[in-house]
């Protein structure tokens, strides 16, 4: 059997669409050929590792990757939970103030964001972030047809041969770090905010934060000319400037939009006049923007013109000779003082200057691949996130009320304390009326109508693969609803995972009320406590680091 056919069969096996004749064929191949057994293991280990890696990355990013939450058609409600009536660690106390301030700043949204009108179907990006569907495919275990045009699937091994935008190649990683950021001359004040910060809205309210970075990224606050090295999680306010050299960054906006910043880029962050819609003053370099529905009108201003979102993903590159605007999905209006052009997906235009009309709109190919070459692969900022980022939803971290079977005094290194990390040590022991050893921690919570799911962001430290976690909600009257459970082995060891608990029953199912008779469903407004439990077959200890918990809301 040739390799292609064998891999077709393996794909059918993995995707549960193997026919009986396929099964016979694959069995015969495996029984007869050592080479095909080797190939089988190679593919299966990749399959297993893929599940582990994606799970790990999803856990590491889910609770703070706002674009991901947006793709899931929900907004992220970051509300501080009710303060528990227990003493909290000293390190957490300091975080409370910062956390509350941040939560306040994050919640302060103008009515136009909450009431943003829906986009037209043609302009709106798909809910899951994918682009156009591929052409119809052939049968199940048949040889896969060629990928649909415009839907690149192949991984790129190494740097791209072409630059994402324009003709000039970006500096390679080996180039001198002493090179200057590519900066074009900037007119007096076309940006709403000048690169020197003047004319910017009053700084103070955080509009975004540095979601992830790679390499040294620098920030200059407000009108300050002092560039300081930024850390992941740093808040960014109107008037702040950001620059990269041999580095990249991703900025997350409170509204769910994401701004990817390529190497050798300098920009100033502001808001479109009279609104809170983000305005990026791109002085030099390249950015890629995923705009959330709330940010319709997101603008990137350059010395040569302006690109305004009409519901889209797009990229802008500035060089001294001009600005290239390219649209990945949806549409964008690119304009100068002399005219404008509306671009659709897979189109680009070159702006040579404000006094010149936009150039001819051209079609471009394989944008996703080109952009993926520099927008993908950001490491999670979790490990470097400052205290206020990690604990803002918990007013001081996981200060669980002490209950029998729970010990919150687990060992934290000084480094952990400084980073704002808290740990939860669940000692599960044999208890009366429980079939298995069980330990739990509980936390006051206030749910609202429209809350869709709760995400715990955890990292197993003392990790017992035989243990299972369980999430309960407790109503005011004491009834407890068993919401969800899963195995610890599905949490990646020593890395961040997300436990996402849906607050709506899956279609056709009801959740079980564990401490009262009967099945049914709870009223969100009556829930006042959430419990995270761990149980196992033997008495033991499971230790989890928990940083923050998010409540995802329906849009």
């Amino acid at each position, binding site marked *: 059997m040739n390799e292609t056919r064998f891999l077709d069969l393996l794909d059918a096996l993995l995707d549960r669409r193997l026919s009986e004749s396929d099964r016979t064929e694959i069995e015969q191949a495996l*029984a007869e050929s050592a080479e095909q057994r080797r190939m*089988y293991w190679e593919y*299966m280990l990749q399959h*297993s590792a*893929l599940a582990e890696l994606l799970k790990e990355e999803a856990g590491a990013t889910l609770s703070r990757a706002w674009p991901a939450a947006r793709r899931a058609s929900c907004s992220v409600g970051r509300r501080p939970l009710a303060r528990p009536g227990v003493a909290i660690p000293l390190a957490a106390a300091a975080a409370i103030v910062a956390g509350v301030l941040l939560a306040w700043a994050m919640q302060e949204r103008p009515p136009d964001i909450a009431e943003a009108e829906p986009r037209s179907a043609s302009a709106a990006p798909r*809910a899951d972030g994918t682009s156009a569907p591929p052409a119809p495919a052939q049968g199940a275990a048949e040889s896969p047809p060629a990928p649909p045009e415009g839907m690149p699937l192949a991984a790129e091994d190494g740097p791209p041969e072409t630059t994402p935008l324009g003709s000039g190649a970006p500096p390679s990683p080996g180039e001198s770090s002493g090179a200057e950021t590519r900066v074009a001359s900037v007119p007096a004040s076309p940006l709403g905010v000048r690169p020197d910060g003047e004319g910017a809205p009053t700084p103070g309210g955080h509009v975004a934060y540095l979601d992830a970075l790679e390499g040294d990224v620098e920030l200059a606050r407000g009108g300050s000319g002092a560039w300081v090295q930024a850390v992941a999680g740093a808040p960014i306010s109107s008037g702040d400037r950001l620059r990269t050299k041999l580095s990249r960054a991703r900025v997350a906006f409170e509204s769910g939009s994401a701004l990817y910043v390529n190497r050798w880029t300098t920009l100033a962050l502001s808001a479109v006049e009279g609104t809170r819609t983000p305005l990026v003053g791109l002085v030099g370099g390249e950015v890629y923007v995923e705009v959330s529905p709330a940010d319709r009108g997101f603008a990137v201003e350059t010395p040569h013109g302006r690109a305004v979102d009409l519901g889209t993903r797009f990229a802008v590159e500035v060089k001294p000779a001009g600005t290239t605007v390219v649209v990945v999905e949806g549409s964008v209006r690119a304009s100068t003082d002399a005219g404008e052009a509306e671009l659709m997906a897979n189109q680009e235009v070159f702006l040579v200057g404000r006094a010149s009309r936009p150039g001819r709109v051209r079609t471009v190919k394989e944008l996703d691949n080109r952009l993926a070459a520099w927008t*993908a*692969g950001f490491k999670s900022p979790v490990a470097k996130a400052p205290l206020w980022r990690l604990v803002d939803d918990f007013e001081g971290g996981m200060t669980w009320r002490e209950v029998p079977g729970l010990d919150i005094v687990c060992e934290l290194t000084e480094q952990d304390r400084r980073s704002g990390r808290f740990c939860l040590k669940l000692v599960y022991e044999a208890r009366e009326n429980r079939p298995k050893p069980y330990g739990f921690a509980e936390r006051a919570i206030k749910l609202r109508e429209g809350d869709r799911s709760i995400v715990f962001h955890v990292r197993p430290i003392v990790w017992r*693969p035989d243990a299972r976690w369980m999430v309960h909600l407790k109503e005011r009257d004491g009834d407890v609803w068993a919401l969800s459970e899963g195995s610890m082995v*599905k949490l990646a060891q020593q890395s961040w995972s997300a436990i996402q608990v849906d607050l709506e029953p899956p279609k056709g199912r009801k959740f079980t009320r564990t401490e009262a008779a009967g099945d049914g469903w709870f009223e969100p407004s009556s829930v006042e406590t959430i419990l995270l439990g761990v149980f196992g077959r033997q008495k033991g200890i499971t230790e989890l680091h928990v940083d923050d918990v998010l409540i995802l809301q329906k849009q």
Partner: protein
Amino acid sequence: MEEERPAPAPDGGPTHAQREFLRHVSLIRGFLVGLLADLDAADDVLQEVFVTVSEKAAEFEPGSDFLAWVRTIARLKVFEHWRAGTRAPRPFAPEVIEALVESAPADEQDFSELIEALRQCLGVLARVARRILELRYTGRLGSREIAARIGWRPAAVDVALSKARRALRDCVRRKLGLARGEP
């Protein structure tokens, strides 16, 4: 009924066997995935294997081949799993399963390299392919569910999954070939 408890380590911490299990857990999981051809079933059996490793920890001699020992346990647990009549049926005839057990890779170093290469390759995978993989592997959704989410046909999702896996396989092979100095 009171369940049998594992012999604790003298200091009350994890035993040597438990530590070894945790050290090799990804490879053990891969072994189970290969035999069961089902990620969820592999996770369930992995828990059973750990419990047995804990129970029999005293029988494991430090310095001996842990992977060989734990695979013997894992193989038995896999057959137990099938006997219990779970929703994931045995994918192949017993003699094929035995041939697979015999040929399963056992080099932790190779597997670590595979994971690292795969991590890098995932980083440059096209966005749409990446999204489909996430829905399949993280959301554990089938082709129909993925298709419903993204507005494609299920067959197109199957094709995209196949192509993404193969693109990753090719990328990993290139990286590992370079890493090992192969031509």
